[in-house]
């Protein structure tokens, strides 16, 4: 499999690998994919409650080089963005940036899902806090 330079770069030097405290109220955690499919992404975001800006983002991925690159890129892009701006990121943007071949498009879809799942988790946690 011939990988693009950008994918290889993210694979050799992934950005924002790691974990945030999933119990912290301003952290949202998204876990998407399945081991049997060969693709699992965990993406976490730390939100500044006042400004709704994504202060920090971390990821961990079980998957091929394209999956790792897609999730690494996702964390790079969402850092410093507001929740609304992050939700606007489309998988096609990732495909374009990494020049993913058709067979790897599903990796970018999973990355977009991971962003949305993390944001959704944060919102759910904070909705509950508000109503409590």
């Amino acid at each position, binding site marked *: *499999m011939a*990988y693009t330079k950008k994918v*290889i770069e993210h*694979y050799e030097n*992934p950005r924002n*690998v790691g*974990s945030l405290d999933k119990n912290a109220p301003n952290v949202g955690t998204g*876990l*998407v*994919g*399945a*081991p*049997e*499919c*060969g*693709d*699992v*992404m*965990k993406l976490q975001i730390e939100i500044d409650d006042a400004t709704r800006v994504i202060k920090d983002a971390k990821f*961990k*991925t*079980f*998957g*091929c*080089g394209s*999956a*790792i690159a897609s999730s690494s890129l996702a964390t790079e892009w969402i850092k410093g963005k507001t929740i609304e701006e992050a939700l606007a990121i489309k998988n096609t943007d990732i495909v374009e940036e990494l020049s993913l071949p058709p*067979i790897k498009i*599903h990796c970018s*879809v*999973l990355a977009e*899902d991971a962003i949305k*799942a993390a944001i959704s988790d944060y919102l759910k946690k904070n909705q509950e806090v508000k109503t409590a």
Partner: protein
Amino acid sequence: MKFPIYLDYHATTPLDPEVLKTMLPYFTEVFGNAASRNHEFGWTAEAAVEKARHQIAKLVGAQHDKEVIFTSGATESNNLAIQGVAEMYKEKGNHIITSPIEHKSVLDTFHFLEKKGYEVTILPVDSYGQVSPEVVRNAITPKTILVSIMTANNEIGTINPIAEIGKVCKEKGVIFHTDAVQAAGKIPLNVEAMGVDLMSVTAHKIYGPKGVGALYVRRKNPRVRIAPLIYGGGHERGMRSGTLNVPGIVGFGKAAEIAVRVMQDEMAQIKRLRDKLWEGLQKNLDEIYLNGHPTERIANNLNFSFAFVEGESLMMGMKELAVSSGSACTSASLEPSYVLKAIGVGEDLAHTSIRFGLGRFTTDEEIDYTIEKVVETVKKLRDLSPLYEMVKEGIDLKSIAWTGH
């Protein structure tokens, strides 16, 4: 050390220098057609072919050189054996038996025959990939005409109890074929002791050239007949027409002779290196699982699942090593290995497997480097793996409701 380090000897092997030297005159000096009966060019080519035939006969333990016929490779030998028996014995019966972890050249041929109307039984294998002789016995019916079980598996290295299966087939009067491609040169082969009626072998797995193989066809006790696949000038006793690939055959013969000569010492050396790799990986990594039988396996094979690390990303991180993940023969597909699936390895683990195939030219230095590289890459990818993190936290992955596509 030359990079990448070649550790895919199950896929193919380089020519042994002695083999290449032996072949060369047959391209330009002794270049005759072995079937040219009327002049010296033909006679010398024929003599060279007959010498090679004898060398292959010795490799497989055949009683007569005549029992060896040359083909273009084991894929053809497998096709010829299976289709040849099916056609020749179709009045006797239409039931044929095999195992689920055979090479595609066997499985696909069985599928073809099934579409043609033959009854096919695919026997189960145990978690090591072995077929039980009792299971074979129970599957045989009065309409069974062929059992085909490989001697050693190309992915997981497991060796089958061929002699016991051979005994069962003999008892029941069923023709027994074995694909011995991966076993040749690794364990002694003897068609008499193994009770085998047909055996496929190939040159390019034993340091011979690609494009030439052989099929052993028993002539006595019982006499086995096969219908040809290829018609023409009636070469190879009518079983396989076509001008013989003389240089290839000469190389094959030489490779076979070397294999028999060095087998014991070479296998001891390779086993030492393979075990060193095995220990090196086990010592430095947790959650790695051996695929295949721990002891009844060919000495050059190692197949591990590295849990929580995906195979393609692992290979990407080890560009200095030439290994394979999942089935080498279907590497174009995205399907996890059908061999691992058949032995019960879950899809999640199947995606994480790597096959190492050592060989004649593998060195200690290469193994030392390999251990380091694999350990380093697995650790790096585990740092990236959410699954490994969850497992270390004590979470049971099976309890998660995955969103999966």
